[in-house]
Every structure is written in C-alpha cells, then in structure tokens.
C-alpha cells in the first residue's frame, strides 16, 4: 500500500493525521458549510450585518418552508424528476442493446461505430445547439419535457454505450457460445444470458445518468423557457430573482435543488464510483 499505512508510523504521526483529517475536511467544504449556515439564519441577521456570527434565531423551518410553499420550487423539482427518470430508462435501454451488439458480435464497422459513439460523447454542446433547437421547435416540442428527454436520451447513449460495451466485453464469452450451441435464439441470449449479468452495470449507469441529467443546465436553457417545463437548475435563477438579495432563502433554495443527486450518491455510492471510473480502473 502506498503511502505507508499510518499504523506503521510513529504515534505522533498517527495523532497528527487524526487531527488534520477533520480540519482538512472542514476547509474543503467551507463554501458549502457557509451556504448551509446562511440557509438557517433569519433575514434580520443579514440586515444587521451578522453574516458569520451564530444565527440569532434558528429559522430553518420557515426558510425551507418558504422554498416549498411560496415559490415555484416544487414545480421545478417535479419537472426535473419527469425529465430525469425517462431519460435514465431510455438511455440505459438503448445502450444495453447497442453495447450488446458491439461487445458480442464481430462485424465490419464494429469498431468504427463504437468510436463514433465515443467521439460524439465528447463533442462541445454548442456545435449541436442551433440544429437541435431547430429540430425541437419543428417537432413542436420546444419548451416541453419530451423535447428535453428525447435529446438527453440521444446524447447520453454515447457515454452509456461506451460503458456497456466495455462491460459486456469483460463478460465470459464461452457462456454466450454455449448458449448458441444449444440453439438459443440471439435475442434470447441477450435477454436471458447477458442482461442478468449486467445488473451492476445497469445500476452504475442509472445513478450516474441520473446525476448528469439532473445537473444539466445548458440544454435546459436552450430548449425550455418557463416553469411549465424548466428543470430545477434553470428554475433556480428565476427563484433567485424572486428573492433577490434574500440570501437565507436563496441558500435554502440551492440546497434543495442540489439534494436529490447528493442523496442518490450517498445511497448508491459503490455503483456511482464504479460508473465514474468508466469501468477502466477496477
């Protein structure tokens, strides 16, 4: 193990490591701690210039209550959900199939198609912006949830296919060959042999794509306009103009907006990290 395990070092080392650790963490999360502090303060503290002292009263309930009951926030959160969940299902389904085709079969153009998916995934969003916006308008889906979902599914398919194909490549191939010798139809091999083995990959991708889509801002701004379809990342700017300079409310709003992917991460940590490393670092 590198660096040298702390248990093998002197007592002084061990103690100082244990002391430094929490301090480093507080320093690292300082901006976030500041916002969390803001979000439980009363408005009066900001008027009196008590920015960094202790809150003069504990106002978490009223601040967060305002976010949920006196703004469009719940609507934005619902929109985000309605955009994120179908996208996750769609992108994972499409890429499972594409990954199976690219990972199991040898045919002309296999590697070329695979590389097209990877390359497309790295492209700057701006080169797609004008035509995709145009297409969405002409489909009558501008400022709608479906419009965003369709695009997200298509774009995320690139990354998901990269992931799925590499995962399927690493599965034991003799399993598939054995099924073929038995005369099992190809689509049954996919459904009954390969798919059950892909469960960890499915979980990893689902969590990862959930986070990516929830956090998307650019396409939300390009393809939607108002509270009827905007997800929370785009809605938060409108929220902030509603509560201009009310830092306690804006902080509470941001924390609410950030929470779902954070919760997802802490619940499904193992899968999340497996997904992030693209399966390349085991």
């Amino acid at each position, binding site marked *: *193990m*590198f660096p040298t395990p702390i248990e093998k070092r002197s007592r002084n080392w061990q103690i100082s490591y*244990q002391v430094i*650790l929490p301090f480093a*963490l507080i320093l*690292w999360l300082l*901006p976030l701690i500041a*916002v969390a502090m803001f979000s439980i303060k009363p408005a009066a503290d900001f008027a009196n210039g008590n*920015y960094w002292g202790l809150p003069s009263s504990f106002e978490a309930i009223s601040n967060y209550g305002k976010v949920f009951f006196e703004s469009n926030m719940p609507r934005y959160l619902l929109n985000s959900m309605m955009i994120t969940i179908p996208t996750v299902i769609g992108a994972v389904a*499409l*890429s499972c199939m*594409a990954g199976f*085709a690219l990972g199991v*079969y040898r*045919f002309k153009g*296999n*590697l070329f198609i695979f*590389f*097209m998916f*990877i*390359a497309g995934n*790295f*492209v*700057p*969003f*701006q*080169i797609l*912006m*004008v*035509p*995709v916006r145009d*297409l969405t308008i002409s489909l009558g889906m501008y400022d709608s949830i479906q419009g965003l979902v369709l695009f997200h*599914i*298509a774009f995320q*398919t*690139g990354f998901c*296919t990269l992931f799925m194909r590499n995962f399927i490549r690493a599965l034991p191939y003799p399993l598939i060959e054995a099924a073929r010798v038995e005369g099992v*139809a*190809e*689509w049954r091999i*996919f459904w009954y042999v390969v798919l059950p083995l892909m469960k960890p990959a499915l979980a990893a991708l689902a969590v990862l794509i959930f986070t990516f889509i929830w956090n998307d*801002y*650019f396409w939300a701004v*390009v393809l939607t306009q108002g509270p009827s379809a905007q997800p929370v*990342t785009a809605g*938060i*700017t409108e929220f*902030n103009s509603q509560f201009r300079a009310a830092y306690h409310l804006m902080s509470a709003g941001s924390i609410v*907006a*950030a929470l779902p*992917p954070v919760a997802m*991460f802490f619940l499904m*940590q193992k899968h999340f*990290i497996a997904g*992030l*490393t*693209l399966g*390349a*670092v*085991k």
Partner: protein
Amino acid sequence: MSSISAGSNRTTRSWYKRNEIAITPWLFLLPAMLFFAIYVIIPIGQSVWISFHQWDGLGEKTYIGTANYERLLGIGEQKIDRKFETSFWNNLKWLVLYLLAVPAGLFIALFLNQTVRGIRIYKSLFFFPFVISQVVVGLVFSWFYLPREGLLNAILAVFGAGPVNILGDPTLATYGIIAAGLWPQTAYCMILYLTGLNAVDPEQVEAARLDGAKGYKMLWYIILPQLKPATFIAFVVTIIGALRSFDLISVMTNGGPFGSTRVLSFYMFEESLSEFGFRMGYGSAIAVVLFFIMLGFIGYFLYSMWRDEKEAR
C-alpha cells in the same frame, strides 16, 4: 423454437434464421444509432452548413461563404473579433489551470489512502462537491466571493487583508470562476486516483521498499506507472470539462465584467440566443472553431483507446 426449424428442413428455414448472426447486431444497434445520428451526428454537419450563412433563426438563410469566419478571425482588412480573442485566451487559461485538478486530486487521494476509522465517510465527503450541479457550485462560490457578505473576505479581514471583489474585477474574475470549477473537478480526479491506488500491486510496492525506494522516488517510479489508466481518464475528463465550461460562467458573471470572463462556449451562446439578437450563422462559426479545437483532443483520445483495443486482441 429454433431447434424445430433447424432440425426439420434446411431449405424452409427463414431468411432471418439463416442470417441471424449477421443481422442481429444491426437490429440491436438500430434504435441507438438512429437517435444518435438524428441528435448528434447530423447536427454537427448542419452547424457547419449554417456557419456559412447569415441567419436569424427564423427567416431565410442567406449564403455568405466564409464571411463569418473572416469576421471572426480577422482575415482580410478586418480586425480580429475582440470578443472572440478574449474568449479564446480565456479558454486557454481554463485549459491550463483546470489541469491542476489532476495533481491536486492525486495529492488528496494520497492523503486519504489510509485505513483509519471512519475514512470511508471522509472519502465520500471529500468527493461530494462533484455530485452537486455546477449551477449550485457557481451560486455557492459567488456568495463565497461577495465583497461584503462573503466568507472569503471575512477570512481575509482576519489576516488584515483588504476586501477584494473577485467577480467584479476584470483581471481576477476568470481565475475566480476557474477556482470554483477546480473544486468539483479535483474531487473527480481524487476518486479516480483512489480507485486506482486500490489496484496498485502490493508486492511491487513491498519489493521496491526492500530495495530502499521511498517517498517521491517510490511515487514516481513505482506508483504512477501503475496509475496510468486513472491518469488518462483524469486528463480526458478534465480537458473536456475545461473546454465545456459554461454553467459556472453563466451563473457567476454572465460573461462580465466587461465581457472579461467569456469563453468560446459562452460567446457562442450569447451570439446565437441572447437578447442582442439571434445571430445563428455567426454563432455556428464560433461553435465550429471550438469543435475543431476539441477534435484535436478527441482524436488523440480515440487514438490511445484504439491502440489499447489492438493490444487487447
């Protein structure tokens, strides 16, 4: 079901059955390829096409040849577009400084690669800035930088340093935004290295230790070579992230003050979809330039992956 048709009569086997192995992959690929072509591959070509036109997004497109590019790059008697120039240099700053996330991530990973009590919670708490949306990171940092209410200036005041308005100062604003971007990106690189460090071969480390390798030498000659896959991914995601920076700029400064924090991706958006009017042709030309810059990197990434692919066979 297939055993019946295979056993009974060869000539009556359907065309599909005979070609099953050849056709199946295409059937499985079809939906994904269709989606990807419509929304990703074809739009790239369309953008290039639009960049040779003058277009407000609604009316007719007027073909104007390479005039957009000439105006952008200052070919002929025109001067280079000043906004483009600023954006380009800012992109370069992003690219160079953003890469600090890679060594910083390695440093934190080495710091946390221990087995003391509760270390798992520390690791996930160190990582979690990455999970927060860039919009929220941008808001959090813009409040952190506030000249009066911000924590940064409260800390500086303790050390007797005067208040600085980072996002209001054209010379500092871009660096302030990059610092905000480094926060989640460092977390990402850290997790890549932590997973990489897990896979380091302990026998090699022990052998090197017996040979007297320690500290930096050990890191450089024994550990880093084994972390190569992690380093590769860290570089890929960081470079792409740097060139994609948009959310933070949009949220923190909206390109200002005086347009000093624009980057190409933001400038493109501003030209095509802002309140100043829809100049889609000119915007597309900017996007194409950005695309070609990125294509250089993408080409290199694909080449390295292709090489690995060849070795794997």
